[in-house]
């Protein structure tokens, strides 16, 4: 749940990258690396930015760039998407490759995971084929040390022919070493790095092609690499090379030669697939050789502790129960922990409201002004803050801890079977988890799913899991109507269990609708998939708390408040402007009422959901405002008083259940819909994404209400 300003809403998509240098002398540094090697953490440490990080592969789905100033020198760092290779098989790989090839960076740092260096060297070797101005950055050195893995950086540097730097993202000093190395590589003579040797036939073909490249290409593109690409049959790269670098007059001869060499290779049995295999094998075995003597380890990167944890967290017997228990525990801690601060905040904020009222009276401000600003804007804001802030400030850090420790990919692993049964893949479970934080972020996260069909499935069903804007509503109603606000650990445990039940219902709906879509609009079979389960990492508790509160909690709260203030004003106006006999508010509510009654709701509730379109957080405050403006004005200091107000307005347990059901299933908020449109590029899918949960919610509420009435409830 990469939930920051840049990852949700308007800033969500930025695939085209324009480098913004602050000064013309700024160095442009590309940061490449496998997924999940701490690249984003390093990027944040260098730039002081808050690119969200999480311990699961494929987290950076967009390019990010940031600046870093060191003494006189400025750097523009470009965080490329994490990839295993640069062979441009996927969109991310192409972005990464094209930036290194044609983006003209002054130097590139390839970030590697010290605990599994050999595999990371594949990318290093491929990068070296593109450009010699490379620094290899062996990250997570602390992690490796703990696992008894020693990396001989000096020897590796000798073998590779480029600087190799060990880093620990948290240690400032190691970052300085990295920037020093990058300076050296960018300024001086380009290093002459190791070249991977391919089978003789291929080397012969390379040698035949390289002299034919236009002379001016040599300084931009490595001829060996280009020859390989052409032999592989990559025609796009030739087009791009001519477009970027010119030399059109030599095109004919070059294309002829490529054709001839390819034919000869094919005759020798080096067809396209075999050719590629040979390239990969050569790189992999070179990496293997390089590592001999460089990496000495007692155990493997996958430690006995990881092994034990995985056996516990993903086994047949304990996998699901522990998953459920963890979810229930997170909710329980949220509910228990939020109770007291919520109360305190509400007392403080309403004390402030009284003082504001006194101030307005003192200034002889007109009644309407006091009403609009204090009873409208301020009161709704106060509600949003006191109801939302405490649960979020607890839920987000807890969730981030699980994420940081590396548990989320295990959820995807555990849930792949059920998702596959619905013709989708387990990675959808990951995006679902992100949806708990914010559906818009979950939808951007769907980019980790390779198959376009499965990606659409994940996007369309994402809003079936309640986001953080809906949790407070669910928690408040659960506590009021089903647990009793008497408190005690039993009550809070019960509400945590009930909330877990609601989440399970959401997951069940996600699966059901995924299956339904797979049989109708998005027909198809599940595609193949691989999922990396990264090593568990000890979460950086302090950092997690700070980051999740500032990046996520305050961001979500800010957005809610920005919507709540005008909504409060609107509600107050609607409640105080009379048309004919009644207020605007009662007109609207009365208009919606007949339909809402069918669903076991009332007009006010339905209107609150409609007005809550910009942000779900304000649904309950709007309901409260509407009831309060119609009835006697009382101070709502506790959930008990809130319940009394609701019951006075005709709520029963059936209403409460229906509100929760409808909260789980209704149109996604505006930010989410905008994001869906951006990600799918289609109004049709966006409309479907809104229609599906709405139809489900209306149908379920009507069915539930009818059932209860039949049963004589």
């Amino acid at each position: 749940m990469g939930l920051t300003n840049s990852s949700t809403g308007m800033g969500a998509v930025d695939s085209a990258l324009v480098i913004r240098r602050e000064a013309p002398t700024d160095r442009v540094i590309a940061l490449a690396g496998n997924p999940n090697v701490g690249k984003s953490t390093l990027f944040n440490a260098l730039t002081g930015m808050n690119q969200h990080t999480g311990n699961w592969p494929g987290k950076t789905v967009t390019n990010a760039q940031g600046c870093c100033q060191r003494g006189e020198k400025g750097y523009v760092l470009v965080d490329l998407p994490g990839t295993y290779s640069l062979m441009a098989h996927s969109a991310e790989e192409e972005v990464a490759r094209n930036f290194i090839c044609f983006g003209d960076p002054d130097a590139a740092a390839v970030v590697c995971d010290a605990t599994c260096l050999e595999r990371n060297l594949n990318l290093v070797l491929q990068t070296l084929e593109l450009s010699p101005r490379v620094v290899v950055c062996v990250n997570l050195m602390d992690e490796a040390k703990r696992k008894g893995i020693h990396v001989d950086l000096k020897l590796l540097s000798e073998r590779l022919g480029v600087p190799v730097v060990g880093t620990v993202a948290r240690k400032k000093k190691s970052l300085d070493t990295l920037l020093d190395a990058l300076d050296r590589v960018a300024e001086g003579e380009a290093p002459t790095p190791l070249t991977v040797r391919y089978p003789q036939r291929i080397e012969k073909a390379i040698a035949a092609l390289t002299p034919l490249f236009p002379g001016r290409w040599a300084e931009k593109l490595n001829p060996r690499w280009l020859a390989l690409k052409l032999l592989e049959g990559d025609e796009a790269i030739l087009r791009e090379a001519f477009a970027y670098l010119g030399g059109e007059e030599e095109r004919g001869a070059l294309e002829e030669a490529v054709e001839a060499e390819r034919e000869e290779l094919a005759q020798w049995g080096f067809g396209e697939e075999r050719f590629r295999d040979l390239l990969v094998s050569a790189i992999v075995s070179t990496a293997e050789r390089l590592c001999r003597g460089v990496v000495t380890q007692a155990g493997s990167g996958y430690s006995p502790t990881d092994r034990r944890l995985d056996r516990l967290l993903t086994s047949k017997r304990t996998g699901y129960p522990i998953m459920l228990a963890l979810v229930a525990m997170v909710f329980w801690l949220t509910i228990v922990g939020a109770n007291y601060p919520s109360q305190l905040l509400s007392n403080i904020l309403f004390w402030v409201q009284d003082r504001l009222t006194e101030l307005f009276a003192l200034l002889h401000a007109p009644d309407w002004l006091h009403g609009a600003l204090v009873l409208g804007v301020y009161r709704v804001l106060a509600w949003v803050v006191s109801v939302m802030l405490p649960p979020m400030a607890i839920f987000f850090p807890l969730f981030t801890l699980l994420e940081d420790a590396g548990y989320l990919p295990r959820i995807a692993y555990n849930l792949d079977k059920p998702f596959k049964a619905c013709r989708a893949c387990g990675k959808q479970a990951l995006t679902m988890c992100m949806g708990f934080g914010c559906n818009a972020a979950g939808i951007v996260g769907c980019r980790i799913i390779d198959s376009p069909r499965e990606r659409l499935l994940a996007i369309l069903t994402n809003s079936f899991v309640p986001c953080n804007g809906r949790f407070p509503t669910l928690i408040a109603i659960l506590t009021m109507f089903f647990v009793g606000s008497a408190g005690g650990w039993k009550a809070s445990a019960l509400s945590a269990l009930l909330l877990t039940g609601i989440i399970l219902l959401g997951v069940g709906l996600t699966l059901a609708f995924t299956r339904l879509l797979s049989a109708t609009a998005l027909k198809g079979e599940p595609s193949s998939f691989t999922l990396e389960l990264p090593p568990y990492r000890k979460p950086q508790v302090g950092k997690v708390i700070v980051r999740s509160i500032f990046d996520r909690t305050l961001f979500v709260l800010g957005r809610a408040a920005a919507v709540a203030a005008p909504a409060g004003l609107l509600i107050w106006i609607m409640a105080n402007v009379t048309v004919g006999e009644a207020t605007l508010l009662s007109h609207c509510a009365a208009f919606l009422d007949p339909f809402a009654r069918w669903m076991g709701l009332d007009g006010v509730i339905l209107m609150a959901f409609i007005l809550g379109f910009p942000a779900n957080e304000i649904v309950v405050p709007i309901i409260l405002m509407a009831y309060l403006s119609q009835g006697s004005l009382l101070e709502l200091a506790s959930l008990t008083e809130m319940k009394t107000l609701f019951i006075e307005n005709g709520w029963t347990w059936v209403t409460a259940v229906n509100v929760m059901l409808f909260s789980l299933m209704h149109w996604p908020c505006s930010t989410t819909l905008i994001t869906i449109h951006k990600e799918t590029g289609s109004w049709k899918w966006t409309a479907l994404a809104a229609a599906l949960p709405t139809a489900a919610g209306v149908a379920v509420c009507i069915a539930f209400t009818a059932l209860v009435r039949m049963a004589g409830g």
Partner: protein
Amino acid sequence: MEHTRCLSDLRPGERGTVRALHSTGAMRRRLLDIGLVENTGVECLGRSPGGDPAAFLIRGAVIAIRDQDGRDVLLRTE
């Protein structure tokens, strides 16, 4: 004695060496990306609660692969 089996036959705790890769298209490229070339050693670490996919230790990284995809990876086992 040497047997030929496929990746999805491995039971938790068993090891093997890749003999041939019959996967095609995107899956083949992905497996090659993670270093699953001929003669690479793999170990089955366990199965997910649903029984599929299974987790394998490949070149120091843990990768989950479904049975349907694992069938295309032929192994030598001891």
